């Protein structure tokens, strides 16, 4: 057993840190305040090779791993603890992996280089207003007529709505829609590359809206209505009616990367906490850290974060074995518990750190002069439900531990 990162991983982490210190850290508060990641920064991140990390060089990827994508998400979130920039990064690392694995050859060559360059966004459009956790219950439909799919429906709480419109090329989503009889449940879902804007041109039948979110404001979240939106069959992902399985594969990677991002933000919060309790003096000049009520709590918070970090990189390591190395020793189902565990633990460990940090700061933390709230609200998004509700993670774990027949969703 070896708990050390490889030399390549260490050097990559160093390079991401250096990039973040130079280009992200000085702008993170502005990103959160203004509610947007500047297009020039996205382009620079593309030039630095921070998107399509686990994708092969043949398709303009970086030839790296899911572990490396997690390292990037963690470090970027440390330097933008609101996690907006990290979320942009992780979306454009996790979901393009499905394009590489299951899309047509010419579609891969069309989409992936533009995502890698930071000229196009590629995210996930699965959630609908009927309930994000019930993926099998989606209502959006896709009907094939004369070799073209016609999509109708509505997606909600989707990241990247504004970015697609603002980036020079545009972008789209990994989208799932019903393609068969409703009674087939999750076995009548097909996945598509929903290209909304390409080479600057927005396609017909897409009506977007953007929400005013309370946290990780740098990346936009909104929804859209599809009205007779047409997609050529070549943009279908994989086999018809197997979209649910591809989606679960995508969530496996996305949840690892989300966990890594929240850990990066949590590390930042913990560093702020340590600095504060060492320097803040009260009750006859005693540092806050000298009170056991504070220092013991800090140890617990650190322990929870470190445990979540180990779970996250263990899941990333296993995902690399399955998806990158394609090692037959492991199957996708082996990822169920490791992925659900890291997604369950990491955001909760981090939001707990923010809650304590803000209590230690006192009233200052309740003002916008103190930036802790930006990290708190940003990471809180992942305890609410983004990339899978926490109770869905518990269901996944319980199903594997006890048996599907005992645990209903």
């Amino acid at each position: 057993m070896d708990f050390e990162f490889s030399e390549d991983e260490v050097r990559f982490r160093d390079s991401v840190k250096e990039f973040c210190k130079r280009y992200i850290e000085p702008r993170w508060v502005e990103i959160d305040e203004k509610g947007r990641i500047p297009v020039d920064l996205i382009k620079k991140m593309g030039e630095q090779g921070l998107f399509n990390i686990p994708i092969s060089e043949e398709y303009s990827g970086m030839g790296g791993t899911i572990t490396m994508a997690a390292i990037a998400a963690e470090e970027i979130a440390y330097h933008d603890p609101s996690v907006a920039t990290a979320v942009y990064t992780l979306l454009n690392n996790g979901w393009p992996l499905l394009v590489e694995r299951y899309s047509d050859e010419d579609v891969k060559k069309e989409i992936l280089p533009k995502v890698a360059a930071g000229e196009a966004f590629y995210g996930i459009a699965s959630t609908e207003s009927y309930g994000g956790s019930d993926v099998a219950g989606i209502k959006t439909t896709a009907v094939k007529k004369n070799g073209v799919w016609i999509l109708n429906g509505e997606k909600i709480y989707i990241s990247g709505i504004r970015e697609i419109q603002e980036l020079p090329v545009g972008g789209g989503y990994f989208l799932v829609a019903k393609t068969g009889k409703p009674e087939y449940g999750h076995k009548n879902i097909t996945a598509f590359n929903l290209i909304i804007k390409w080479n600057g041109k927005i396609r017909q039948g897409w009506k977007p809206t953007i929400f005013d979110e309370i946290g990780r404001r740098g990346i936009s979240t909104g929804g859209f209505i599809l009205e007779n939106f047409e997609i050529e069959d070549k943009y279908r992902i994989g086999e018809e009616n197997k979209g649910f399985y591809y989606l679960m594969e995508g969530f496996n990677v996305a949840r690892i990367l989300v966990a890594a991002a929240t850990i990066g933000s949590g590390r930042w919060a913990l560093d702020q906490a340590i600095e504060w309790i060492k320097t803040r003096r009260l009750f006859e000049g005693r540092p806050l850290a000298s009170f056991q009520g504070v220092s013991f709590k800090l140890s617990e918070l650190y322990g929870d974060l470190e445990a979540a970090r180990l779970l996250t990189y263990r899941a990333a390591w296993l995902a690399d074995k399955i998806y990158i190395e394609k090692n037959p020793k492991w199957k996708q189902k082996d990822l169920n518990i490791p992925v659900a565990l890291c997604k369950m633990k990491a955001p909760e460990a981090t939001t707990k750190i923010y809650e304590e940090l803000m209590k230690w700061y006192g009233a200052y933390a309740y003002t916008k002069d103190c930036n802790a709230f930006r990290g708190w609200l940003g990471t809180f998004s992942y305890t609410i439900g983004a990339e899978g509700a926490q109770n869905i993670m518990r269901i996944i774990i319980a199903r594997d531990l006890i048996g599907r027949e005992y645990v209903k969703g």
Partner: protein
Amino acid sequence: MKILTPIKLTVDISQLKYESSGEPLMDIAPRKMGDSDKCAVEEAVRLKEKYNAHTVAVTIGSTSDHERIIRDAYAMGIDEGYIVEVNESENLNAITVGEIVKSMVEMTGPYDVVILGAGSLDTHSYTLGPIIAAKMNIPIIAGVDSLNYNEQYFEARCVMEEGTYLYRLKPPLVVTVTTEVNQPRIPTLKTILKSKKMEIKRLKIEDLKVKPEKIDLVNLTKYVIQRKNIIWDASKDLEKATESLFKLLVSEV
């Protein structure tokens, strides 16, 4: 054009930790390529990109960290890297290092220009560049803030206290650069992975026929400024305390 860039493994002072007495914990301090050496590598790579130059980096030492900084130079775009292996316990002085670089040039050269950092992060003696130039008997432009080449001569700008100097020199020459000369590129994942596959050539100090020069260190005194630890109680008379503070500051200037 052929360019040699000697690089030094130095303590990463940004990550230095200290004892409660204030002594730095050198044994556990991480090591990295020196900041101005990194600028020298960047300058060499820019010349390579513009004039199709061949770039070579060399470092002296025997640890895995030395290998890492050569790989870091590869990841920035250097074509060929050497490690001159020396005994870990040998504390080489600048004269010996200059001799090693000179022998390197004779063995792997000729080079049009040797570019290195003006001063290292740890010793800051600014002596290595001039020593290399003296041993090779070629001119030097030291402390360069901006460097250009017009296919005939190098043009270098050096900002000094008394003014800005502009030098023009034909190769071969030695150039030492400050951290003002450029902003070094950050290696990407692709270049990091590529650098892992590149060969690092190894030479022993004996191969270069260099005998370490002995210099006795007579005395080394740290430059220490003691804190004055003066505290003014401003709770009763803020104005008076402020005035006393300013009086002291003025008297210190």
